[in-house]
C-alpha cells in the first residue's frame, strides 16, 4: 500500500487540501492506522500553535548583511594584526573555513540574542509621573497605561547607543540598515 506523503498528511490535518486530494487522503487514512496516527499528531500540534505567538520576527536579510559585515571586519582586523606574518598554509586555516566558522558562531550568538533578550518594561501605572526608559527594541515615554515607543527594528542591540539627559529625555542612536543614515530617536518627558 502506498502511503500519502508527510506534507499531504499535514495539509489534510489542517483541512487545506483540495477536494479531490482530501477525498483520496481521507479514504486512505480511514483504512490505515499508521497514517491516522500521523494526522492526529499534526492536529494536536496545531492546537499548541497559539502558544508560539510570542516567537520574535527575524529579519533574515538584515542578519545576513550583518554577518557579511562582521566577517569582513574580522578578516580586516586579522590582516591588520598579522600584517608582517607569513600566512599559514595549512588547509585547516583556509579563509573559507575561517569564514564558515565565524559565520556559525555569529549566527549562534545572534539567535541567542534574539531569543533571550528580556521583554519590554511597561509598568508605568504605579508611578505618579512621566517615565522614559529603554525597552527591548526601542525607547519609550509612558504615563499611566499610555505609552509612545520609538523602535529601532532590525538593528542589533549592541549597535544602538542610548543616552539620557537628566531633564527627562532619552535618545537611541543607530545606523539605519535600510537608509544607511544615522538615525536618532528621541522621547521626552514633559
Amino acid at each position, binding site marked *: 500500500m502506498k502511503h500519502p506523503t508527510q506534507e499531504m498528511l*499535514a495539509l489534510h490535518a489542517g483541512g487545506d487540501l483540495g477536494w479531490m486530494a482530501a477525498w483520496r487522503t481521507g479514504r486512505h487514512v480511514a483504512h490505515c492506522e499508521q497514517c491516522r496516527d500521523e494526522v492526529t499528531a499534526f492536529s494536536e500540534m496545531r492546537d499548541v500553535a497559539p502558544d508560539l505567538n510570542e516567537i520574535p520576527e527575524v529579519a533574515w536579510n538584515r542578519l545576513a548583511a550583518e554577518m557579511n559585515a562582521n566577517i569582513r571586519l574580522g578578516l580586516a582586523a586579522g590582516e591588520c594584526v598579522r600584517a608582517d606574518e607569513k600566512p599559514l598554509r595549512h588547509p585547516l586555516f583556509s579563509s573559507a573555513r575561517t569564514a564558515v566558522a565565524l559565520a556559525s558562531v555569529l549566527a549562534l550568538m545572534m539567535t541567542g540574542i534574539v531569543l533571550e533578550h528580556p521583554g519590554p518594561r*511597561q509598568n508605568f501605572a504605579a508611578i505618579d509621573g*512621566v517615565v522614559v526608559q529603554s525597552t527591548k527594541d526601542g525607547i519609550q515615554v509612558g504615563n499611566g497605561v499610555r505609552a509612545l515607543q*520609538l523602535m529601532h527594528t532590525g538593528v542589533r542591540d549592541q549597535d544602538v547607543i542610548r543616552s*539620557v539627559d537628566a531633564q527627562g529625555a532619552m535618545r537611541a542612536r543607530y545606523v539605519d540598515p535600510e537608509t544607511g*543614515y544615522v538615525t536618532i*530617536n*528621541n522621547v521626552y518627558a*514633559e
Partner: protein
Amino acid sequence: MFMRSSSKRRLAIFGLLSAAGLLAQDAPLDSRNAFKIKLPDDSPVSFVSATMGESRATARGAALLLDLHMTLELRNISPNRIHGVVLRVVSQEVAAGGKASVAVPSLNIKPGDAFPVRIDLQLIRPTQATSGGPLVEVNLDGVLFQDLSFYGQDLLKSRRLLTFWETEAQRDRDHFKRVLAQSGSKGLQQEVLASLARQADQPQLDVRVIRRKTVSAAAFAPERTENFAFLKFPDSPVEPLDGSAEISGGEAQSPRIQVRNRSGQTVKYVEMAWLVSDASGRQFMAASLPASDAELYLPPGKTARLLQDTELLFSRRGEPVSIQKMTGFVSQVEFADGKLWVPTRQNLENAALLNVLAPSPEEQRLTDLYRRKGLTALVEELKKF
C-alpha cells in the same frame, strides 16, 4: 522509524513557525489613515512619498498595542545642502506628558536630491479609548544647512542639537582626514578598527528617568549626598565649581552643578556629562546634565547652577548599579551668538574619555560604513567633505 520521526518533527516545526507568524498579525491597520504628515508652506523639504510597512493592532489585556511603520521620502527643495533634519512625532491621544522626535544628522543632501527617513513606533493605550483623526502626526521641527543656518519651529531645541552634532561631525571627520593624510589608508584602517573595538567594549547602563507629578518623600529616600569630581579641560569656556546629587543605591535624584563662565563671551547654554563608577571601579556614561533654565544668560565671570528635579535609576543586566563615585565635565557650551564649543579629540584622549564616551553620530556612521563597505568606501566618503 527514526527517519520517519525526524521528518515528522521537521515538518511540525515548519508548520508551527508558519502558524505563529500568521497568529502574530492580530488585526491589520490602515497606515495611511494612522499617520498625518504636515510640512509648512515654506518648508525647505518637500514630501515625495510615504511607504507604509505592515501596521497592526494587538490586544494585550486592557491595553491595545498599535504598531506603525513608515518610511518617508523627502526632497531638498532649498538652494543649500542639508546636513540634518528633525521630525516631531506627536500622538495626541497617547502621549499626554510625553513627546518624541526622529532626528537624522550627518546628512549631505544636495539641492534637488531626495532622502529617506524611517519611523517605526508603537503606541500603547487603553482598549476602550477611541480615536478621532490620525493616531500620529509628523511635523518638521527643524533643518540644518551646510552653512549652519537653520529653518524650523524649533519646538524641541533642534537647532542646538543639530548644530552640536554637526560641530562634533566636523571635528571627527577632520580627525579621520588628518590620520589619512599623515598615516595613509593603513593608518586610517587601524584608527577605525580601534574605534570599533572601543564601541564594542563600551559598557552601557540602562537608565530610567522619572519626572514625578507630585513630590513624594516616600518615593525616594536618599542614603547620602554624593559630590561630583570634575575633569577640567584647559580650553573650556565654562568651568565646573562644585556639584552633588542625592544617592540611594542605584538611584540618583536632583543632580546640581555650579559653573562659572571663564570666557570673554556671554553663554546661553551649558551641558555637563555625568559619569558614575560602580563598586568595582568601572566607569559608565550615566547621563548629561543640561542647564535647566531655558533662558540661561551667563555673562563673562558669572556663575550659574545646573539643576534637574528628576529621578534616575541606573541598572545593568537587570541589576541596580551601586553608585560609588560621580565625575562630571563640560560637554557642550553655546554662546549668545549661536556658536558652540565641544571638547576636542585631544581633550577626550588626554582624559581617557574615549573609552567611556559613546562615539559621535558621525564617527558611528563612518565606522559603520567601513564595517559594511570597506576602506575604499570610507576614503571616498571622507573626500566628499
